[in-house]
């Protein structure tokens, strides 16, 4: 997942003129607890089917749920990170029959959720309201064995309850999101936050982070809320953007044809690139919510909440800001934070390395395993060698790769590899020779317009690199060429 630079405000050209999107997202994140929400069974992804189970999460007759204190703590962390009010909460039963739900009800929070009224600040400066972030338990997974993989014509179904009862937080945004890119930024930021505070591993591909989108449209500038559709089965950020755009356009076409969308749940079909209606209105569920009599209200003390607040690590927003204040650009800072390399970058910069070069390496050369263990002082030394002319950019990249691999210091690696930047006299002599051999090209460089000059500059740099096997410093070659042409 890469961090996008998101546009501020509306995203033009996606909808016909005069319409804007109104999007609210429901993000489910599995909490990174050792055991399940109400059961002593392990909370672990993967594993043989039906091995991380216990009578309680199987809902066996006579079993009773007991709240996992760690899940409460993680939920409070999320609430605080999203600027929510943390309050007394009540678990309720959401009743409906489904084979992968062992009790045929889901324990969730309904009218008294643990976190309410927060907001999330995007890198663009946009602020997205958070309505609530409540706790609930996950369901199991069904596999339908038959011709199409659909439940309707399955020969039989297999159910794996390993996931049943895994703690989930459902984070419900207000309908403040105005386009697919902003929706993606919101999910990325949310993901970065839950990962940073250790509340979830945030892996969309493993299903530990899942997104449903409520989409509607309205005349641009109006503040009405029109009929929305809930889009499910969105399994990646890319799908999220596509699904939102498709659905919003569908609504606009309906309105422009004098029709209107129906409120319904729709499923994103990735292959066909369209949404399809899910459950019909006739089958609409009445969940018959009521307070779960097996559980008591959760009422965290103000002392506990403050203790959790005090222990919260720096949030992505603050970490980006820390880099920006050293002179880094916001997009570069965002990449560093997304890679969790911002602390390394900051330490290297504080040790005297050039911020721009540091962040360039982070963006281009450190998307590798083990980059986080790099010694900041060594990293700073490398950048200093490079900016001081002791290493070319290409050499620096090679040395850096070896530093990550071996943990050794840059000077030693450079010496072993014989990377000693040519001194300028040596380089100048070489360049003079090349110019002498290529008089026509040199003339075109001296007389040419900007475009030709640039092209010829590439020609001479290439020759120098060829002759030096890449050991020359490209910037120095450019400086020499310009000086010679000018002089």
């Amino acid at each position: 997942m890469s961090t996008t630079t998101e546009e501020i405000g509306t995203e033009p050209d996606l909808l016909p003129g005069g319409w804007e999107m109104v999007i609210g997202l429901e993000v489910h994140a599995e909490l990174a607890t050792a055991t399940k929400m109400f059961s002593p069974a392990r909370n672990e992804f993967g594993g043989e089917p039906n091995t991380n189970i216990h009578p309680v999460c199987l809902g066996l007759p006579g079993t009773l749920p007991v709240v996992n204190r760690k899940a409460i703590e993680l939920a409070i962390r999320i609430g605080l990170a999203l600027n929510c009010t943390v309050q007394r909460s009540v678990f309720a039963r959401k009743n409906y029959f489904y084979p992968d739900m062992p009790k045929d009800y889901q324990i969730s929070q309904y009218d008294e959720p643990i976190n309410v009224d927060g907001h999330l600040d995007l890198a663009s400066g946009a602020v997205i309201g958070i309505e609530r972030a409540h706790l609930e338990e996950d369901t199991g997974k069904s596999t339908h064995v038959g011709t199409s993989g659909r439940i309707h014509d399955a020969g039989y179904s297999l159910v794996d309850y390993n996931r049943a009862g895994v703690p989930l937080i459902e984070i419900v945004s207000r309908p403040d999101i105005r386009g697919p890119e902003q929706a993606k930024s919101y999910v990325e930021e949310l993901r970065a936050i839950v990962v940073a505070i250790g509340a979830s591993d945030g892996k969309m591909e493993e299903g530990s982070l899942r997104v449903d989108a409520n989409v509607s449209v309205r005349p641009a500038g109006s503040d009405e809320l029109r009929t929305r559709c809930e889009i499910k089965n969105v399994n990646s950020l890319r799908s999220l953007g596509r699904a939102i755009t498709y659905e919003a356009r569908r609504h606009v076409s309906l309105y422009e044809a004098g029709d209107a969308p129906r409120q319904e749940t729709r499923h994103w079909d990735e292959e066909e690139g369209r949404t399809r209606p899910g459950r019909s209105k006739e089958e609409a569920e009445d969940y018959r919510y009521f307070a779960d009599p097996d559980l008591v209200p959760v009422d965290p003390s103000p002392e506990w909440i403050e203790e959790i607040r005090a222990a919260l690590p720096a949030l992505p927003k603050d970490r980006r800001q820390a880099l920006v204040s050293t002179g880094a650009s916001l997009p570069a800072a965002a990449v560093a934070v997304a890679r969790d390399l911002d602390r390394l970058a900051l330490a290297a910069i504080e040790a005297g390395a050039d911020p721009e070069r540091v962040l360039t390496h982070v963006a281009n050369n450190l998307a590798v395993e083990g980059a986080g263990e790099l010694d900041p002082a060594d990293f700073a030394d490398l950048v200093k060698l490079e900016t001081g002319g002791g290493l070319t950019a290409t050499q620096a990249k090679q040395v850096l790769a070896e530093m990550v691999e071996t943990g050794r210091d840059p000077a030693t690696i450079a010496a072993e590899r014989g990377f000693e930047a040519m001194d300028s006299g040596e380089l100048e002599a070489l360049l003079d020779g090349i110019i002498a051999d290529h008089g026509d090209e040199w003339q075109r460089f001296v007389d040419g317009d900007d475009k030709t000059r640039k092209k010829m500059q590439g020609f001479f740099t290439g020759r120098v690199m060829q002759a030096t096997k890449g050991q020359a410093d490209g910037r120095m070659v450019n400086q020499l060429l310009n000086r010679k042409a000018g002089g």
Partner: protein
Amino acid sequence: MIGGRHMSGGTGVIEIAAGVRSGAVTAVSVVEEHLDRIAAGDGEIHAFNTVVRERALAAAAAVDRAVADGRDPGPLAGVPVAVKDNMCTRGIPTTCSSRILEGWRPPYDATVVERLEAAGAVIVGKTNLDEFAMGSSTENSAFGPTRNPVDTTRVPGGSSGGSAAAVAAGFTPLSFGSDTGGSIRQPAALCGVVGVKPTYGAVSRYGLVAFASSLDQIGPLSRTVAESALAYDVIAGHDPRDSTSIDRVLAPVTARLDDGVDGLRVGIIAELSSQDIEGFEPAVVERSHQAADALASAGAKVEEVSIHSTIAGLSAYYMIAPAEASSNLARYDGVRYGLRRAGPNTAAMMRATRTTGFGDEVKRRIMLGTYALSAGYYDAFYGKAQRVRTIMIREFDRVYEDFDVLLTPTSPCVAFPFGAKADPITMYYNDVCTIPCNLTGHPAMSIPFGTGADDLPVGVQIMAPMLGEEDMFRAAAVVERAAIGSEGADR
């Protein structure tokens, strides 16, 4: 008198435990004797769904080995006990007297079962009940009714009819039931034994198959107050596996059992103790007044008190209990355990399974509860019932500022013949005296006090405030002594 009497005395809990602990008798001989009585008599009574003869004898032998090794097996050493068939017993079928749990053997023991075995008790079998504890006669069992040992043409009450009958018939000196709206106290009254519903949260519900979670509570049935007091002390106490379990150390009720009632403030609830109430048998009401007189002569201050909300209790209960039941019983869908009836798809399979597996009364309550929780009806039904419950709790709490215990009949009538209350509303009305304490969470117990129509047993009910078990038991002990004195009976 029509029908046979199968009442039996036998050695009591305290004598058995003392004998086994001292080595005077072996647990094996005690358990064997009781198993033989069951084998001889239960064909007619049908107190048991399952008898675990071999397992019980093995457990008894282990108790005897402990004694031989000089280890104390515990306060219930060698005592044969019967547990209602809605409490989970590892490896032993736990049916709730329903076809829907066909073939299911729990992989774990209920907390109460663990505590009983840790105290040296020997479980001999699982007792019959109204399906999922829904009923007041044990006629709703999928495996056929239990007969009242006092008069086998009559019901034993319910839903813990099997547990009450097991004690009344002398099959076991001690049994355990669950009480959601009177399901321990009413059969105790109808079978002439003691039955206790402890404070909600005093005894762990872990392993009790839920009927209505906010009302269910496990408690003992025995021939004497002292036996139930001892059993209560064994099973009560905090359990981290039950979130509604009270997290504090409870004083043993046996310690003050014989302290008497001098100065105890006793209230007779007017709304449930008048000869004028429709459906209340005069002799039953008369007995509760005599019990009050007995407490007064023992030094208690007895007064009549009005608790208006008790009248609304029945209606509130028949909204709340079915609502919770409709959710609690959803899991019996044929997917994971118990009965499964095939269907062309999952929904049809679930429908066929539940249609076949549940009896009429269970279906009736699931439908009532589903309706009470439905969108658009919630406020008028479930919401309103919860408000009634809150009012009732407040009113009882106010009354308990002036009283230590309250007194009523346990059941408006004595044991009735099979089929006499086929109309559900008539049957529901049976619970009018017992339901208030389930709604408030307060403890209550039934003590046999003489007889009523047709020479059948009558029970009086003593209620107490939250965790007021000490006062409740010592008042019960006084009432018990008065009952024995007035009858000169051997009970």
